[in-house]
C-alpha cells in the first residue's frame, strides 16, 4: 500500500540561477533544513531581543525625560508603538508568505504564514491593551475612539477571521491556501480601512493618542523607541522560528525525517 519513501514531495521551483545566494535561499525552502536552521538561530535571536529590550526599557522608563504635557504616562508608547508597528508588519509577512505558498506552491510559505497569525494577533492585542492603558490617565476612559486604535481593532478582527478559517478547514494545506487568499485580500483592504477610519474620526473630532510634535521628538525619546522596535522585531523573528518549527512537524509528520526525530528522542 502506501509505503513511505521519505521526502518524495518536491516543491515546484521557480527558474533558478545557480548563484550561491539562490542556492542558499532554495535550501531554506526545504522544511528539514529550515527546521534545523531555526533551532540553531532562535536562541540567538531571543538573546539579542532581550538585550535590546533591556536597553530600550532602561532608556525609555528611566533615562528619557518626562513629557511636558503627559508626564510619565507617555512612557507606555515604548510598548504600544512597537507592538502596533509589529502587528502590521506581521500581517505583511503573513500575506507575503501566504502568497509565496499559493502562487509558487512553496510549502514553507504556507508554514510561515500559519505560524505568523497567532503572533500577529498577540501583538495586536498588546497594542490595544497598552493603548487602553494610555487612554485611561489621559482621557479617563478605558477605550478611546482614536483613529489608529480603531483601525488596530479592525486588524484584530482580520486576524481572528484568519485564525477561525484555519481552524475550520481540516486539511492543513487547503487551509493555508485559503488563508493566503484571505490574507492577500486583507492586505489590500488594510490601507482602505485606515483611510476610512481616519475619515470617520475626523468627522467626530476624536481624540488622537499618537499626537507627538512631529518635527520635535527628542533624540532621547526616540532612541529607546528604536531600540524597543528592534527588540520587538527580533522577538517576533525568534518566536516565528519556534512556531514555524512546530508547524513544520505538523505538516511533515508522515515523512521519514520527522519519524526519525521523534523515535530518536524516544530511544533516549
Amino acid at each position, binding site marked *: 500500500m502506501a509505503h513511505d519513501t521519505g521526502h518524495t514531495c518536491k516543491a515546484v521551483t521557480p527558474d533558478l540561477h545557480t548563484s550561491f545566494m539562490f542556492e542558499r535561499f532554495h535550501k531554506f525552502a526545504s522544511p528539514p533544513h529550515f527546521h534545523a536552521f531555526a533551532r540553531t538561530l532562535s536562541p540567538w535571536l531571543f538573546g539579542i531581543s532581550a538585550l535590546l529590550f533591556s536597553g530600550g526599557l532602561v532608556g525609555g522608563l528611566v533615562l528619557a525625560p518626562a513629557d511636558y504635557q503627559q508626564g510619565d504616562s507617555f512612557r507606555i508608547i515604548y510598548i504600544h508603538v512597537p507592538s502596533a508597528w509589529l502587528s502590521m508588519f506581521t500581517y505583511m509577512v503573513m500575506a507575503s508568505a501566504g502568497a509565496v505558498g*499559493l502562487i509558487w506552491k512553496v510549502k514553507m510559505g504556507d508554514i510561515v504564514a500559519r505560524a505568523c497569525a497567532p503572533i500577529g494577533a498577540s501583538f495586536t492585542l498588546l497594542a490595544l491593551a497598552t493603548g487602553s492603558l494610555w487612554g485611561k490617565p489621559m482621557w479617563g476612559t478605558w477605550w478611546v475612539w482614536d483613529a489608529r486604535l480603531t483601525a488596530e481593532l*479592525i486588524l484584530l*478582527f*482580520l486576524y*481572528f*477571521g484568519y485564525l*477561525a*478559517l484555519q481552524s*475550520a*478547514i481540516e486539511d492543513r*494545506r*487547503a487551509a493555508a*491556501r*485559503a488563508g*493566503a*487568499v*484571505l490574507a*492577500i*485580500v*486583507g492586505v*489590500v*483592504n488594510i490601507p*482602505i*480601512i485606515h*483611510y*476610512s*477610519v481616519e*475619515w*470617520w474620526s475626523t*468627522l467626530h473630532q476624536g481624540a488622537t493618542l499618537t499626537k507627538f510634535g512631529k518635527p520635535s521628538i527628542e533624540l532621547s525619546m526616540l532612541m529607546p523607541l528604536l531600540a524597543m522596535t528592534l527588540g520587538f522585531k527580533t522577538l517576533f523573528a525568534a518566536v516565528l522560528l519556534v512556531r514555524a518549527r512546530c508547524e513544520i512537524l505538523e505538516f511533515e509528520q508522515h515523512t521519514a525525517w520527522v519519524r526519525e526525530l521523534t523515535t530518536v528522542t524516544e530511544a533516549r
Partner: protein
Amino acid sequence: MSNAAITAAGAVLMRDLQRAWRRRGELMQPLVFFTITVYLFPLAIGPADDTLRILLPSIVWVAVLLSMTLTLPDVFAVDHADGSLDHLALSPHPLALLVLMKAAAHWLSGAAPLLVLAGLLCAVFGLETYTLRALLLGLLLGSPVLSLIGTLASALTVGLRGGTLLLALLTLPMYIPVLIFGTSAARNAALGIPVEAEMFLLSGLSVLALTLTPWATAAALRARLG
C-alpha cells in the same frame, strides 16, 4: 473573450436567477430579518425619541450588512451540496468570469430587493427626502462591494461546519469602509453638506472590488476544492 465564454457566463447567471426565482419564498426570509432588525431599534430606543430619526440611516446600513451575511452562504453552498461546484471549477472558461456572474446573480436576487425594502422602510419612518436619496444612492453604489466581497467569503467558507457564522466574521470587518462612507453620506446630507466625496469613494470601492475580487474568489474556490 470568446463567444463560448460569454455564453457560459450567461448560462451561470441565468441558472442562478432561475433558481432564485423558483425559491422565491425563501428569498423573503432575509427581507423579513432586515425588517425585524430595523424595528428592534425603535423598540429599544423609544418611539417618540428624536434619536431614532437621526440614527435611522446608520441603523438601516447595519441591518443591510447583517442581512447580506445571511444570503451570502447560498452563493456557493447550494452548488456544493449537489456537486455542481465541481462543474464550475472544471469549465475551461475563465473561473473569474463565472464567479463574477454568481456575484451578479446574488446582487440581483439578494441585494437589490434589500435596497428597495430599505427605501420603503425609511420612507415609512418619515426620513427627509434629501437624506433618503443620499442613503439610497450610497447603498446602491456600495452594494456591489458587499456582494463581491461576500461572494469571496462564501467561496472561502463553502461546505464548512458553522460556515454562516464564519462568513459573517470574515465579511463584516471588510464591510467597514463601505459602512463608514455610506453612513457619512447620509448624515452629511441631513446636515445639508454636499456628499459627492462619499459617493465617489463608494463608487471607487465598487470598481476596485469589481476588478480584484473575481480573481481572488476563483483562487479561493480552487484552494477549497482541492
